């Protein structure tokens, strides 16, 4: 019951957010120069042919009508069909979702496995010695400021020249060839993970530093607790809350489709699909894709809300 009371306002806020996202993506697509008719028919075409296409897809209707139709269809679970392939959008999303999910899990796994321990280490060292600069800040600043496409391009260059077991491009499904799948997924996964490593490292470091100045840590030191006990029992849990938040945000961002990296490494995931849909002005794909990404993002953040109410008893009354 208290869980419901805790979640209800969050669900209401989520619905409002989704409405805003749907408006935003709908309008911004229509603000882009060129439309589906230009893509399909090319530049040298009669206005009549253009009008036929527009009429066929309802693009001649006022924007309000178009939006209402789309929103109504989405609410009843109809994600529309791709104008290019004439196939249902939802089927294509479902087919590609596992690829994006795998990529996201690789990136998240690497980011957590590297970022969290390094962040704790860096924070504890900095906190104990009052050092302002150390490797944690350096790695954090560098990792967060290198763009995906730069890093991906460098990796593609390096691993094209020396294969070193990894494979550039050449995606194969896991079910067809597990080893080949891993070989082709590691580089895009690593590219995506670098930002996550930096994000989680910096967040963890700052959280650990903040917790270490709290009086209850001094109290634990005063009781003669060993540094290991203090870190394990007191610092890790107290520092976990902001880390959970950014991890959720990062995971949501990954699941929304890592567009640039999927395009760069030709990974047939959701991101590549949305990207191609955008190039083709294939409205249904982009609109559904962005909205789905928003749903995933919001859901994950809501799960994070529940999780940190469990970590910190002061946050919520979930129990």
């Amino acid at each position, binding site marked *: 019951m208290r869980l419901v009371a805790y979640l209800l306002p969050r669900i209401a806020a989520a619905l409002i957010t989704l409405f805003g996202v749907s408006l935003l993506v709908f309008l911004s697509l229509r603000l882009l120069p060129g439309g589906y008719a230009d893509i399909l028919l090319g530049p040298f075409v009669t206005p009549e042919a253009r009008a036929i296409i527009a009429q066929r897809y309802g693009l001649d209707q006022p924007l309000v009508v178009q939006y209402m139709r789309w929103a109504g269809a989405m609410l009843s679970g109809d994600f529309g069909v791709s104008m290019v392939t004439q196939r249902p959008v939802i089927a294509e999303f479902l087919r590609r979702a596992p690829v994006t999910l795998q990529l996201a899990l690789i990136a998240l796994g690497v980011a957590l496995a590297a970022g969290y321990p390094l962040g704790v280490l860096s924070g504890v060292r900095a906190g104990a010695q009052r050092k302002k600069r150390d490797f944690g800040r350096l790695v954090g600043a560098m990792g967060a400021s290198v763009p995906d496409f730069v890093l991906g391009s460098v990796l593609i260059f390096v691993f094209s020249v020396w294969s070193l077991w990894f494979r550039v491009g050449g995606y194969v499904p896991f079910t067809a060839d597990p080893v080949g799948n891993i070989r082709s997924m590691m580089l895009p996964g690593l590219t995506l993970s670098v930002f996550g490593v930096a994000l989680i490292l910096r967040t963890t470091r700052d959280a650990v530093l903040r917790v270490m100045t709290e009086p*209850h840590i*001094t109290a634990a030191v005063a009781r*003669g*607790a060993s540094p290991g006990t203090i870190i394990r029992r007191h610092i890790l849990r*107290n520092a976990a809350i902001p880390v959970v938040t950014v991890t959720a945000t990062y995971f949501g961002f990954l699941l929304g489709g890592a567009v640039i990296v999927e395009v760069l490494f030709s990974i047939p995931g959701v991101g590549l699909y949305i990207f191609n849909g955008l190039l083709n002005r294939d409205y249904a794909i982009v609109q559904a894709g962005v909205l789905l990404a928003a749903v995933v993002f919001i859901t994950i953040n809501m799960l994070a809300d529940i999780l940190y109410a469990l970590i*910190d008893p002061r946050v919520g009354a979930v129990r």
Partner: protein
Amino acid sequence: MSRAVVDINDLVIGYDTGTRQVRALDGVDLTVFADETLAIVGESGSGKTTLGMAAGRLLPPEAQVLGGRITVCGVEVTQADDPTLRQLRHDRLGFVFQNPTSALDPTMRISRQVALAMGGRPGSQAIAELLARAELSEPDRILHAFPHELSGGMAQRVVIAMAIARNPELLIADEPTASLDASIRARVMTTLGKLRAESAASLVILSHDLSLIARHADRVAVMYGGRIVELGPAAAVLDAPAHPYTRALLAAAAGNEEPGERLRPIPGTPPVLAGRAEACAFAPRCLFREARCEAERPEARAFAGRDVVCHRAEAVIASDAPPRQEVR
């Protein structure tokens, strides 16, 4: 006199603020004996917290010991290595902090925190008994609570229980009741005093609350400008102060004024020392000041059953009760 638990010799501690040195302790000599309650009194900035924390070497990294020695339970604290210090804190010392709620881990149930403080794997029966010793009613309910679910008084009793969990020889309580409601201060202090007496430990209270000290301390050390300016039996020091600062503190304290009287705040502000004081640090605020006070650093001397750091102690003790301002 009985055995010394703490022996401090000419202790000088400075804080490196990055731009300059600030001297927090300017040559402190102090002995704490077994089975006594010693109160250290002074305004904020007088150095009393620095002194208390120095006994467990719990000072922040900016603090530097510039001279002197602190021996606690036979361990030379300024020289000891980390394992020795940890052992000392673990086995011999107990600290009680000003704000009990923030001294407890907010994410951990009371039972687990107390169990960690007790060491080993105590059963919930043993934990409840310890809490009962700290005079917590309903210990079984408190066991399952989180710190934010407790009142300040209850939380401070939990902190006290954790501090005495391993029967320390020395308890250091830094403003143990300052953050509590006035109505429960006295009771928490009584509990602390009772537990100290049970284990024959020494208790050092750092406080600015003179009425609290008058009732609970055997001896009082008054600190000003990083020095102990008056040290002696509580009754003697509080009834007939020999240092003008002690006298001014008593005049400024609420609780012993007559109706219609106004409390007299001490004019001026406490000094911030950059180095060793070469004169009396209190002289600029002192009613008894003479030329010598601004030229010559007073040293501790035995006088009227106490140690006092003042050139004019004779005049101070001979003066009438601290002058009070009539309400017009």
